[in-house]
């Protein structure tokens, strides 16, 4: 038996450590650990709740908007503020554009390299690559000249030893199955995706100011004025500009991302049999479509247990608890119980080995992540959960697209519960959102013709709040269900808890010994070469891990991080 340690497994921010036991060429046991202490809650105590979003926004470098959204919703829920329609529509556009950008970048920048062999692209025939590309899409940049130019560029970088983002990968691994031409096509689109995201994310500058961190957030509404005729506001000109950006985004998703996804997936249909995970899916829901207290959500909330798509349960926030039996924390009431986030405690108690270490004591505490549970069960969150709940709830466009993808890959719905299903669901979600965004833009344009309100001023002053109140803010971040819980006393934050998507997915076992979603999903994953555990990365990356999101502070004692060792 071989114990494989992958540390870290993200290509971008993060300190996620996977320990896996490999038996007979497949993973027989797995542990997911985050080696960073998370404790932004401690920074927020005593602060003005209206400022909380500005701090939480800095939690995660990859998803700057998501912790701001969850925070303002939690505070609004606590103090009883109701954002007006313009603010709801602006937020929907911000959230959807973040999600669309993030998913495209995840596919090309973070995940494609698990499936696409860059070095193999060097031996592709550019003319055949053009034929392949033209056979799956009418995207104009599909000429032999274009692919030859990309190939040359890659060649230059490889010859100079400047692999850059493509360094530290397992080029030539036997698990890479794409023909050279498909690899070259994917590399070309990787570079185009960088260009595309650069253009598309300018929509955030329109929505939230010319700053990499959006400044348009405000408890009770939005800070970005809307007025059809005012220069300094979101006006008819900015609406037209955004309409153009959304149309281009939809075009790229429809004609590049989705065809690439299908082309790559068709060589990896065996991955529909791996990476299943816990089979329970949790969605808080997102994109309010009206301004009532319980709005209709474009992506519905819900819970699926044991892969039963016919029985989507309503989501009940009271059923969320966090456990610390295997996490480096103490609870006042002991290690075996779970706490609802309103009563959450963040008291670190590191009992792990002094870094650097060979392996974790996985019988004891082994992660800085807590173990969130819903009604006592581990839950997967993210695009797959959202698409499954939408599918099971009768969302017409999701049902149509899921059906069409399954048809094209010639597989049945059971393949959704897998690594490949996660990759496909992310693409479907991207397309559904890219299509829906224009509708929200139209609604914003129509609404602001007669209603310029962007903020609920009635609850701005702390004197208008109860002396003690608490609230929860739910959001579907690109990576999944995100919740913030705030308790306010005399106008200041008394307690604050965040339960982030990567905690749901990457958390350790609970007191009952139930594995977290990563841990469960890795069981049975084939590993051809324990020294190059590419297959483990595939399944973990299919969840889109974001450890800077799951945990917030690095352990500075650990510097040698990018390594794979076989103890």
């Amino acid at each position, binding site marked *: 038996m071989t114990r494989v340690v992958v540390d870290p497994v993200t290509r971008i921010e993060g300190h996620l450590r996977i320990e896996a036991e490999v038996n007979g060429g497949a993973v027989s046991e797995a542990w997911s650990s985050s080696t960073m202490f998370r404790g932004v809650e*401690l920074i927020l105590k005593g602060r003005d709740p209206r400022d909380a979003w500005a701090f939480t926004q800095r939690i995660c470098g990859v998803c700057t908007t998501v912790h701001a959204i969850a925070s303002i919703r939690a505070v609004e829920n606590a103090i009883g503020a109701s954002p007006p329609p313009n603010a709801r529509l602006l937020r929907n556009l911000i959230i959807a554009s973040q999600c669309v950008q993030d998913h495209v970048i995840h596919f090309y920048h973070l995940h494609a390299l698990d499936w696409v062999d860059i070095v193999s692209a060097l031996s592709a025939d550019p003319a055949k690559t053009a034929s392949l590309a033209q056979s799956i899409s009418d995207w104009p940049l599909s000429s032999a000249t274009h692919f030859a130019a990309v190939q040359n560029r890659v060649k230059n970088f490889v010859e100079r030893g400047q692999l850059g983002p493509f360094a530290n990968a397992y080029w030539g691994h036997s698990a890479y199955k794409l023909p050279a031409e498909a690899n070259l096509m994917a590399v070309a689109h990787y570079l185009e995706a960088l260009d595309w995201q650069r253009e598309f994310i300018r929509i955030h500058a329109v929505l939230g100011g010319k700053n990499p961190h959006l400044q348009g957030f405000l408890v009770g509404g939005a800070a970005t004025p809307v007025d059809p005729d005012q220069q300094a506001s979101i006006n008819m000109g900015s609406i037209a500009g955004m309409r153009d950006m959304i149309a281009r985004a939809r075009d790229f998703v429809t004609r590049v991302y989705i065809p690439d996804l299908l082309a790559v997936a068709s060589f990896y249909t065996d991955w529909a049999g791996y990476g299943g995970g816990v089979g329970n899916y949790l969605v808080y829901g997102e994109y309010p479509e009206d301004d009532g207290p319980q709005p209709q959500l474009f992506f519905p909330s819900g819970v699926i247990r044991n892969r039963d798509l016919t029985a989507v349960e309503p989501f009940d926030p009271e059923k969320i608890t966090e456990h610390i039996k295997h996490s480096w924390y103490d609870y006042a009431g002991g290690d075996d119980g779970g706490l609802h986030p309103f009563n959450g405690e963040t008291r670190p108690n590191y009992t792990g080995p002094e870094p650097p270490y060979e392996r974790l004591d996985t019988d004891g505490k082994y992660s800085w992540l807590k173990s969130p549970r819903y009604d006592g069960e581990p839950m997967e969150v993210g695009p797959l959960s959202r698409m499954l709940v939408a599918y099971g709830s009768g969302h017409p466009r999701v049902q149509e697209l899921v059906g069409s993808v399954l048809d094209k890959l010639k597989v049945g719905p059971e393949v959704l519960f897998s690594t490949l299903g996660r990759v496909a669901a992310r693409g479907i979600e991207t397309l559904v959102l890219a299509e829906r965004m224009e509708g929200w833009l139209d609604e914003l344009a129509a609404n602001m013709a007669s209603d310029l309100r962007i903020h609920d001023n009635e609850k701005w002053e702390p004197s208008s709040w109860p002396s003690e109140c608490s609230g929860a803010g739910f959001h579907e971040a690109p990576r999944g269900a995100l919740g913030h819980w705030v308790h306010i006393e005399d106008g200041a934050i008394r307690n604050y808890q965040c339960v982030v998507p990567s905690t749901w997915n990457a958390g350790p076992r609970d007191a009952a010994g139930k594995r977290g979603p990563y841990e469960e999903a890795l069981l049975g994953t084939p590993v051809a070469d324990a020294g190059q555990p590419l297959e483990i990365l595939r399944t973990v990356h299919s969840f889109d891990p974001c450890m800077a999101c799951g945990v917030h502070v690095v352990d500075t004692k650990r510097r040698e991080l990018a390594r794979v060792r076989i103890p």
Partner: protein
Amino acid sequence: MSSDRPVPLLVLGLGNLLCGDDGLGAVAVHLLQRRYRVPDGVSVLDGGTLGLSLLPYLEEAHEAILVDAIRGEGPAGSFVRLEGDEVAPAVAGRLSVHQVGVADLLEGARWRERYPSRVILLGLVPESLDLGLARTPAVEAALPELVERVVVEARELGHVFVPRSSDEMAARGSGDLSHVYGL
């Protein structure tokens, strides 16, 4: 300064404000904007830990000064200046998690052949990257000097930052959140 780039000089602060000295680059650019008027042609941004999302800002710049926590010789608070080929290895060395993102950012621009014609990295040696809004005393004491070094560097590139009057310093632009962070 012939360039097709709309921004002649980008001053980009990097790091996580929530992680002690890790945020010194972000803090430095806030201080810079408080103390100086930003001249035409210069864009000063707090890039936080946004990594690849900063690509549009980097690629529209003809030249760039990055301000960051840098592992280097000397005690905490020591000034470090790197340029050209020295920059990429310094941020790829993973002093903190955010530098992984910075490495992606620089490599992304390089692969797209949109790397600024000149990239200078200015910063301080940090002491602690632990959770907290405050910097360590050594780093905090060195921040004004770091701001001055940025000003000098910009001047050598042909961009003159003019000090603000005390009245100006007291006024804050809309959207400026630095007071929220206690800066």
